[in-house]
């Protein structure tokens, strides 16, 4: 690198400033969450007597146990099915190249930039007709459909690049398409599948619009939807609101810190391809 030392230094300073700005909202929430209950916190002040008990209060008030369970159930309903059927479709479109596949692929592409708000009204009436309103299925089923454009696009992009010879070799060995898919293609697609799983997990966990439109009961929503309800109820109690928000954030943060390498890779690739 032939960057001068001064430029390098300016760059570093900018980067550190950026890091501080990114952290500021979290630190300010923490400082408010530790103030005594019932007080109105004033800016960013480290409390003389940090009230860690506020988190315990928020845990009970927000009914965190039930919220976690609900979000996990929704993720369990959405992510495995979405990844499986998208991988199958990606295999069909990218590798088997079914006749008419181009048209179907274009059909999927159509949904890639679709804002959820544009279809939320008919989805509401459709879910109502199915009698699923206010159940977790009301979030699970539409989300699977809404994820298909990106998920199929993603998996097809992987399968298109797998050399055809590999499949030919497997076929000469006498395996059928089913075996080829599970024994050869899926193991090879593992990185693409892992990234997709991470992205879908994150988007489901953080899904807000579907949760507030289709489910009234916060304990049957996603984490983000429940957080919305929590703010509606405790919006005036800044201390409890901050403690509760931080608690609701914690599970995602823990998962993120454990899998951060994969997360960052997935998010970068996700936006690059999407």
């Amino acid at each position: 690198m032939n960057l001068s030392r001064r430029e390098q230094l300016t760059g570093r300073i900018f980067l550190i400033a950026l890091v501080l700005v990114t952290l500021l909202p979290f630190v300010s929430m923490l400082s408010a969450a530790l103030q005594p209950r019932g007080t109105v916190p004033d800016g960013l002040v480290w409390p003389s007597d940090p009230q860690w008990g506020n988190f315990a209060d928020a845990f009970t008030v927000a009914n965190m146990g039930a919220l976690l369970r609900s979000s996990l159930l929704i993720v369990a309903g959405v992510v495995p099915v979405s990844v499986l059927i998208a991988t199958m479709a990606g295999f069909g479109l990218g590798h088997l190249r079914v006749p008419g596949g181009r048209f179907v692929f274009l059909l999927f592409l159509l949904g890639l930039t679709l804002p959820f708000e544009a279809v939320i009204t008919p989805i509401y009436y459709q879910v109502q007709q199915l009698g699923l309103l206010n159940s977790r299925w009301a979030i699970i089923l539409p989300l699977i459909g809404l994820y298909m454009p990106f998920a199929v696009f993603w998996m097809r992009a992987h399968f298109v690049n797998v050399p055809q010879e590999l499949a030919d070799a497997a076929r000469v060995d006498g395996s059928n398409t089913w075996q080829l898919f599970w024994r050869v293609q899926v193991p090879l697609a593992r990185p693409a599948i892992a990234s997709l799983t991470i992205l879908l997990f994150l988007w489901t966990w953080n899904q807000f619009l579907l949760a507030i439109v289709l489910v009234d009961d916060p304990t049957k929503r996603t984490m983000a939807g429940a957080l919305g309800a929590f703010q509606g109820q405790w919006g005036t109690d800044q201390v409890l609101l901050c403690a509760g928000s931080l608690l609701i954030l914690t599970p995602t943060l823990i998962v993120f810190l454990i899998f951060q390498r994969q997360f960052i890779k997935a998010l970068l690739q996700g936006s690059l391809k999407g």
Partner: protein
Amino acid sequence: MTSSAVRARRRRWARTARWSGWLWVLPALLMYAVFVLRPLALTFQYSLYHWNGIGVARWAGLSNYVTVFTDRDLLKIIGNAFILIIFFSFIPVGLGLLVATLVRRITSGPFGTAVRTILFLPQVIPLVAAGIAWSWLLSTTGVVNQVLRAIGLGGLARAWLGEFDTALPSVGVIGAWVLLGLCTILLVTGMSKIDPALYEAARIDGAGPVREFLAVTLPSLRQEIGVCLTVTVIAALASFDIVYISTGGGPGLQTTVPGLEIYRLAFAQRQVGLASALGVVLMALVLLCVLPIQRLTRQDKG
């Protein structure tokens, strides 16, 4: 087996496999058709009727669309979404480019990993949480006003999200915060792939930092800039979560965006037809903005 036998077998195999291949695509296509394509068609259909969601729908022709394009409030709401593009897209991409140019690459050591991890935090947390955190930062007793008072600018202190002139820019700042890290990392990653020899050559040709930026950096980062713009423009036009949480669209209609207005029209005011027409317009606006960006920035792959 002779090679011709293998080939024949492969061909036969390929033919049946090609048609039975539809079975692989079918489950995904089915879910997509039921929960996206059908609702999409219904949105178009609803948009042509006056309907309160319960009673009998009345044919409206294109009058809902006429309302969208002539009603002053609705036009203002659409305008708000475009103003948000400045904050959601231009600021993160501009600042991201600046940082990327200065840093060129983030070191791979612990410093680099920490920076990358922290800059990604806003992408990982729900937008709702970002909204709550920033509502507190920007409130009358929040950190922003605290800092202003500390440096003697207490006169500027205000309820940033509550006042007419500052509400929309404040919402914009929240979006900028969410997207800045992603754009920076994307651009720095793109930057580290540029061949240093290009800069060497530019220097030898006597190019200053500005020429260098215009002649080497910008063209090389075309694809990454395109990605950043696409992601952020969609986030701005289709914004909902942040606005819902931080301002609820107020004061007045100052921060109301199309996504929020669709939600209100459809579920509070029971004007399903108008809500759907606005949905169709929003969809079209996203495409109108995103397709040119893609066209300008995609590298020709032949």
